[in-house]
């Protein structure tokens, strides 16, 4: 049995900040980009880390909602999401000047490629969220090339390619849609093998857990996978900072332990080495595992 409880949380950097909403942009396909003035988070957040957003002062919703930091500019952070329930509906209804409590940065983020290295990002749906920041930081850290594979159900729901790069050079976006309305006709994971042929040093993935599980299968079958493959995972969260123990995800047990092993998405993740995740167990979880 592996116990996720440890004392090594990096909460030293987290702070609960009262932010000020700067803008709420509505993109095509229902995607929303919310920009908030949060100097502390803007100064401290790294790609793949997330924040807990308090969608309402009242009791609906009761808990905060986790959102990846999608972009940082000056003292503002942006979050990218779509309305799927009460919490995201409230976030989308915010207006410039409104206050928003933002707790972060939280969790473990992505590893940047070495200078001169290459990064392959695999994005499914709203899994796009962490990649603008990751791409720009990777380029800033000297990455030779960043390729983003971006998939969605249909063209309208693709995150706009230009928003991945946001002006950074050396960022290339390749698209896929389930209905073939733009780019590759099929799942984004089907484009991975080709991209691996370009021998990226680091692979970073984000999307629904089932998509990530599929990706893990592709990587297992790949002849020469990247030396580092990381994925940002999701779990329903009570607190977001390692206390409620609510966000368990199945990980491979050390050794031959018969008991299940769990990691905490909010502390050991959300970004985890893909080899650490027990993908079979993750697949077996009900879809409700993210409700």
């Amino acid at each position, binding site marked *: 049995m592996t116990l996720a409880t440890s004392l090594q949380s990096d909460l030293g950097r987290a702070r609960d900040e009262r932010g000020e909403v700067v803008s709420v942009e509505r993109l095509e396909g229902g995607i929303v980009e919310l920009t908030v003035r949060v100097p502390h988070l803007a100064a401290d957040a790294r790609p793949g880390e997330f924040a807990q957003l308090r969608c309402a002062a009242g009791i609906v919703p009761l808990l905060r909602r986790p959102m990846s930091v999608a972009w940082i500019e000056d003292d503002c952070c942006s979050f990218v999401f779509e309305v799927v329930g009460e919490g995201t509906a409230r976030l989308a209804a915010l207006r410039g000047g409104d206050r928003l*409590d933002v707790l972060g940065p939280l969790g473990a983020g992505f590893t940047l490629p070495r200078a001169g290295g290459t990064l392959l990002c695999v994005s499914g749906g709203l899994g796009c969220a962490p990649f603008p920041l990751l791409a720009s930081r990777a380029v800033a850290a000297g990455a030779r090339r960043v390729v983003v594979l971006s998939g969605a159900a249909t063209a309208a729901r693709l995150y706009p390619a230009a928003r991945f790069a946001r002006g950074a050079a050396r960022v290339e976006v390749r698209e896929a849609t389930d209905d073939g309305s733009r780019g590759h006709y099929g799942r984004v994971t089907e484009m991975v093998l080709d991209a691996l042929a370009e021998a990226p040093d680091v692979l970073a993935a984000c999307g629904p857990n089932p998509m990530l599980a599929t990706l893990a299968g592709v990587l297992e079958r790949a002849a020469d996978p990247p030396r580092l493959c990381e994925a940002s995972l999701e779990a329903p969260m009570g607190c977001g900072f390692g206390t409620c123990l609510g966000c368990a995800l199945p990980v491979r047990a050390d050794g031959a332990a018969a008991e299940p092993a769990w990691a905490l998405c909010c502390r050991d993740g959300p970004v985890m080495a893909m080899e650490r995740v027990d993908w079979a167990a993750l697949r077996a979880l009900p879809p409700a595992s993210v409700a």
Partner: protein
Amino acid sequence: MTIEATDALTLPAGAEPALDLRVDLGRALVLPNPIGVASGTFGYGFEFAHLIDIHRLGCIWTKGTTLHPRAGNAPPRVAETAGGMLNSIGLQNPGVEHVAASYAARFAAWRVPVVVNVAAGDVAEYVAVVRRLEGVAGVAGIELNISCPNIAHGLDFGREPAAAARVVEAVRAATSLSLTVKLSPNVTDIAAVAAAVESAGADAVSAVNTYVGMKVHLGIRGPVLPRGTGGLSGPAIKPLALAAVAAVRAAVRIPVVGVGGIRSAEDALEFFVAGAAAVQVGTASFADPGAALAVLDGVVAYARREGLQRLTELRWSPPPAGD
């Protein structure tokens, strides 16, 4: 363990009689103030220590701790409901040995009393956990969880006065620490259980643990939580917890620690009216890590405004029963 009220909470000499916030939970455990944090919603305090000034709290009640480490239940473990949340953590914890050998030393360095919440599957196990904590510096008291709905047999002891008394008697004999018994609200007569554990030697009772609840997922046509049910906490249960505290209060003489849905100073004050001697802030800390401290500040401000010397002055005396 005695901790004095901080100066900030005492009026200057010569002014009106000072507000005395201390709460005596028996066997020399005196909380500096009545606002603490509930078991399972504050871990062992280490995460929150980064986020808030934990030393201002009246007490930290730790995560439920068992004899052996536990990995917890399969996910999903939490689900939100109208004004509440369900949890089915399954008592994930590192085991009492780790708590006693490693965590307790850190507790000892804090200026806030830490009471260890203890859970077990049978009497012998309860006794073994409590024994291991005896005399360990940093452990200010024991809260006996006889009411966890998320493990097999977790509710058995809390559901029946005689069974509850049995485990409390055994634990009482095994510890010299202040012993609070955490009651299950999933019973016909919580007052009877409270009276039974008082007779069995408890120094205090806390009410309430979570209510057995279910969330259904239409997509899978089944419950969201793999075990079917979980424990409901949060504002939704506040009226139920208040009724439980009032019923327990009327049945025992030992202090009652109120818990259930508290997120504001006003909520806490309502529990004092219902008869609580101290309160625990639980689920509210998830959405607002500073919730318990805000409750404390609000309660102190109210008490000052109203010229109270002790919060027990707020207590309501129910009229004699009748139709």
